[in-house]
């Protein structure tokens, strides 16, 4: 089974938990990534100062976002890059289609872009007779399998080499079955080299869009990003409006935080800075470059100062690498485009509490993600905020479909809880009852049933600490 299906996170997670191979793949992969990252940030002082700087850069850019978007547009335009704005993914897809049709483009080669996943771009183009081919090896594998990425940096992390070799055997003409990674990579290189050569257009994401200079920055190891943005005559870049940074000097700190947090590398093979299409004197490069700025719910997330913090993300994946939940269920269980902790805060905000209001509760609030986020997003705080929104108890609700998980039963439970705990007399009474009768509750009772599936029943004490303290004669002042 490739991607767990089910209506709720709990159902999908349940399926994933039973998949021993998946769990082993993820555990091994996450352990490796955590270890590599830790080695990169061995100097605790440098780590804290660098992430403070990273946080300040992202928050500064967000605080000036509308002005920076205007400045970005102006500078990109002066550099010869055409800028388009899209409020929805439908609009963005139509813009891409329009640009491709104008050039009669039939094949697009793609660099890795999570925004293009938000757009479901490949399917959309496919329905309009245009072939979109993933060129990043992990995405290429995932596309071949008819799946979606399960991690934002390592899309095929849920697959082992046997699974990949079988895929290649089925889908690549002339591939001799081998589980050797080098040989499989060589086969992919040969296939994709042809595709780069023949493609009508290249599509990429953007890691950082620099307002000061009108520059699009791309981070990669394989070279497919450079191929997609250099070989075809047309390059289309898609990005969320939150990827803007103010100044060129803001880029190196973020780049360093990104590569070291994501895969534990001091640097990626290539850092590609695009400030224009082929100039009058250049011999190669695309003749046309377009950038599409996508909203898709980001302006709504931006509107509230607390939820705005979600937009600081530089898409490193460290949060999911360290998440005990993600490690056990993998990326597909989250249901949306972005998995892991960042997915738990973005997906409900982009796609609504109605469908994804259970995601913020799929966390023990262990804060492992908070500890490693290179730009200090207060993920746990946003998770609790989203729980408020889901329950319909937010004093200034702003999230899409706020209150969609409001439950009268839950409201009554917590009202009862409040009454019991804010009145010392009520608390004394209830705790007295529990010490005498609590242990009689059958293990199969609701809530207890879930607990006792792997644990013994909790045992109420015969006397509460209140009673013992009183008997001991402790001062009650």
């Amino acid at each position, binding site marked *: 089974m490739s991607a767990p299906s089910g209506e709720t996170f709990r159902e999908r997670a349940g399926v994933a938990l039973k998949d021993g191979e998946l769990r082993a793949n993820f555990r091994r992969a996450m352990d490796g990534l955590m270890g590599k990252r830790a080695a990169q940030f061995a100097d605790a002082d440098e780590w804290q100062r660098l992430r403070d700087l990273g946080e300040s850069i992202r928050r500064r850019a967000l605080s000036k976002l509308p002005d920076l978007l205007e400045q970005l547009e102006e500078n990109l335009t002066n550099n010869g890059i055409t800028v388009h704005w899209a409020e929805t993914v439908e609009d963005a897809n139509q813009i891409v289609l329009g640009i491709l049709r104008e050039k009669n483009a039939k094949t697009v080669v793609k660099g890795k872009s999570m925004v293009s996943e938000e757009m479901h771009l490949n399917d959309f183009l496919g329905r309009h007779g245009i072939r979109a081919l993933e060129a990043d090896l992990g995405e290429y594998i995932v596309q071949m399998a008819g799946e979606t990425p399960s991690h934002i940096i390592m899309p095929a992390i849920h697959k082992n080499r046997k699974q990949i070799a079988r895929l290649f055997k089925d889908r690549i003409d002339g591939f001799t079955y081998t589980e050797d990674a080098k040989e499989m990579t060589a086969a992919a290189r040969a296939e994709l080299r042809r595709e780069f050569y023949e493609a009508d257009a290249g599509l990429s994401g953007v890691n950082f869009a620099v307002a000061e200079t009108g520059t699009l920055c791309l981070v990669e190891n394989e070279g497919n990003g450079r191929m997609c943005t250099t070989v075809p005559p047309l390059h289309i870049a898609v990005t969320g409006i939150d990827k803007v940074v103010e100044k060129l000097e803001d880029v190196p700190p973020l780049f360093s935080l990104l590569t070291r947090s994501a895969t534990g590398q001091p640097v990626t093979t290539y850092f590609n800075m695009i400030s224009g299409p082929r100039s009058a004197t250049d011999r190669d490069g695309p003749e046309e470059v377009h950038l599409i700025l996508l909203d898709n719910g980001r302006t709504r997330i931006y509107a509230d100062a607390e939820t705005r913090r979600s937009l600081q993300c530089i898409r490193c994946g460290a949060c999911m690498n360290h998440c005990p939940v993600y490690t056990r269920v993998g990326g597909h269980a989250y249901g949306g485009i972005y998995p892991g902790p960042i997915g738990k805060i973005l997906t409900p905000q982009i796609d609504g509490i109605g469908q994804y209001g259970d995601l913020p509760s799929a966390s023990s609030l262990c804060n492992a993600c908070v500890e490693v986020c290179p730009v200090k997003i207060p993920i746990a705080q946003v998770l609790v905020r989203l729980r408020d929104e889901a329950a319909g108890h937010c004093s200034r609700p702003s999230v899409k479909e706020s209150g969609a998980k409001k439950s009268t039963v839950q409201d009554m439970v917590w009202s009862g809880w*409040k009454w019991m705990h804010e009145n010392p007399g009520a608390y004394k009474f209830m705790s007295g009852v529990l010490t005498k009768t609590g242990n009689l509750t059958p293990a199969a009772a609701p809530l207890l049933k879930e607990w006792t599936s792997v644990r013994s029943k909790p045992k109420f004490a015969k006397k509460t*600490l209140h009673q*013992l303290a009183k008997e001991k004669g402790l*001062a009650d002042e």
Partner: protein
Amino acid sequence: MAGRAYPQKPDAVYFFGTCLVDLFYPEAGMAGIELLEREGIKVIFPQGQSCCGQPAFNSGHRDEARAVAAAQVKLFPKDIPVVLPSGSCAGMMRKHYPELFEGHALEEAAVNLSERVFELTEFLVHVAGVKLEDKGEPVRVTWHGSCHSQREMGVLDEPKSLLKQLGNVELVELQREKECCGFGGTFSVKQPEISAAMVTDKTEDIERTEAKKVVSGDCGCLMNITGALEKKNSAVSGQHIAQFILERTR
């Protein structure tokens, strides 16, 4: 915790038991109290106390949490430390009360309280400066620190340093010491399958240490872990660090 300024040892402290200790592990609370009294500190236990409010706060019921938290804030007016035998509840009061009471009439009192909140081992090490003499039999133990203890209160070395003072105690570290045990309060019943997978991994980690006991500073984790150990008839038992220390040094 690094960077926290600790006060001189006071003559008296408040003790906030926490609801889990109150109902399920009162002996741990009494042990914590006795450890403090042994250092010559008077322990005040306001009988009106109940819960820090964290369960409601984490479940998206902020108003209910605030109402209960307000009742607690009013119980600790004196400018003396408030000691808790739980890193999780200490974290709630220390880190989240200021935000919970922002703009509220009790904001000043809540902020003042948050600055006086200490987790028990933190207090014993940095404020009381306890010196322990081990009178117990040799034993191998392992330590489990709660996520909030480690990540909200910055407490990890303190409990281990107390255990290391005990000469007959061999402390073995868990392989995945920092990984969550899967309790997470309501998480354990909202996502029971994932929680079960996490506690299963944690108990396997514990059993691999061949320790006789797992010691912890948080009763939520303890209830979760010992519950799982009992269910599989494990030879390993669990205990709150206050009880463990007190029993061996009486």
